């Protein structure tokens, strides 16, 4: 019976794998962000780009700067779009106001916000990545706005929000690149490029014109507007089994938020991860929710998170069980201080 079972399984795999598609050439960057879309299914092989070159660029930038990430950003937010991190500060009062403003010239389809205080070399690295894709962006379509010019944009965008505008002082306001792409219709290519850029430590965010309404143009300017909701300290147990107090699962209901450090820090640490690692958090969602409803943030203002790579994935499973996957490198901390909630 065992032999027959083994043979049947192998036969089944053989017939399944016989239908596997052709491997094809190296995928284009435009396929990164829109995998699964119709556009991604139409290979645009004439636009194959040398991802190796970009890889090396990013190695040079991210690798060097990994060691000083922690305090650089006011609020490093995981940027992989499978988790709805754009609303990472759900209480931020100005998002809606900012959402519909796009005070850039016609043709500008993407804006890349550079972390405030970046050196000329760091800014050049961002420019290098942008120009590494000549099929998408030409130098003529690229414009850099320094802090003063960025401030002028902010004044237009935040004309009805003087409180937030006042917070965007020259030392905290991101500078920016505006991108007028060669092919403004090919959103897939731009989205892929934006995804690459978001992984650079010099880049605060890359926003597509088509995404406006879901992002805050100038990110999170000051702590006074970025305070997360208060910790949940009352109510039913949200972390761990009520009987044993120990569990690998978090249970949360709509609108609730968990800050693990404030509840059971021993259950989520300590961490002493060397090299590449993953931390997975299972989250049971209420009926009708899926991973796109999950918001996630970790504090970025402590040294403990200096090497915490802000990549978060939510992978689905049956019955509303999703998994938040945190990719980390050399992460050492007594516990993982994070917040997770439903949008």
């Amino acid at each position, binding site marked *: 019976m065992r032999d027959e079972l083994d043979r049947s399984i192998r*036969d089944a795999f053989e*017939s*399944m794998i016989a239908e596997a598609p052709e491997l094809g050439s190296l995928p284009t960057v435009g396929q990164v962000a829109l995998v699964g879309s119709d556009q991604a299914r139409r290979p645009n092989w004439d636009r194959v780009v040398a991802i*190796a070159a970009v890889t090396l660029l990013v190695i040079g930038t991210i690798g060097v700067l990994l060691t000083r990430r922690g305090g650089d950003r006011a609020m490093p937010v995981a940027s992989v779009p499978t988790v709805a991190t754009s609303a990472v500060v759900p209480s931020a009062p100005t998002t809606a106001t900012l959402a519909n403003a796009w005070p850039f010239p016609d043709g500008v389809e993407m804006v890349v916000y550079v972390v405030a205080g970046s050196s000329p070399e760091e800014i050049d690295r961002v420019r290098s990545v942008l120009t590494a894709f000549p099929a998408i962006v030409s130098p003529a379509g690229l414009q850099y706005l320094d802090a003063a010019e960025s401030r002028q944009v902010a004044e237009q965008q935040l004309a009805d929000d003087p409180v937030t505008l006042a917070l965007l002082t020259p030392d905290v306001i991101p500078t920016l690149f505006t991108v007028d792409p060669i092919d403004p219709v090919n959103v897939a290519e731009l989205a892929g490029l934006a995804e690459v850029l978001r992984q650079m430590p010099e880049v605060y965010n890359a926003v597509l014109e088509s995404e406006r309404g879901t992002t805050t143009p100038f990110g999170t300017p000051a702590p006074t507007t970025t305070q997360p909701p208060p910790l949940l300290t009352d109510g039913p147990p949200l972390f761990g089994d009520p009987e044993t107090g120990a569990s690998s699962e978090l249970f949360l209901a709509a609108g609730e938020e968990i800050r693990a450090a404030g509840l059971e820090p021993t259950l989520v640490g300590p961490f002493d991860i060397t090299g590449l690692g993953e931390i997975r958090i*299972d989250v049971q969602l209420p009926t009708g929710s899926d991973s796109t409803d999950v918001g996630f943030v970790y504090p970025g203002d402590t040294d403990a998170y200096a090497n915490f790579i802000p990549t978060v*994935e939510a992978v689905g499973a049956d019955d509303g069980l999703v998994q938040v996957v945190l990719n980390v490198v050399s992460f050492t901390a007594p516990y993982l201080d994070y917040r997770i909630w439903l949008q």
Partner: protein
Amino acid sequence: MEVIDDDPLHGTVATSEALWREHGPIALRLATVLVGPHDAHDVTVAAFLRVVGAIARSDVRDVRRYLLRAVRNEAKSALRSAGRRRNRDLAAVSPASVDDGRPDVDVRRAIGTLSAQQRTVLFLTYWEDMTEAAVADTLGLSRGTVHRDLERARGRLREVLR
């Protein structure tokens, strides 16, 4: 909470094209088993680009292992919606061109009812001839988990063959 702590990874970074050529085929086969031929390429591309990003951020040597994990994760993501999952599973295991009366079709259907992780474990065991220990190492799971998944999968398939 599950923590996977890889060893420090050191070594040379090959070109992306070379990595794609070397490791793409097995990733594509696994993706085909997990999500079917229609979405396999998309899942593989997404996983590969994730690996490229990881290489950019660290010194990854065992690309194959990382890629297979990425395929598994991407496949899970692709199967997120229960409705979509059912359709994709059917597409993965029930090609219109095959005779439903054939035993391997029944087995394929049964494989389609397994979880993505169980399918991954089964694929690596039967198609890649990995030991349970190797599967556990590749996927960052405990040997006990792999053994349990394998036995459950076999049990499910054994029922089909009765």
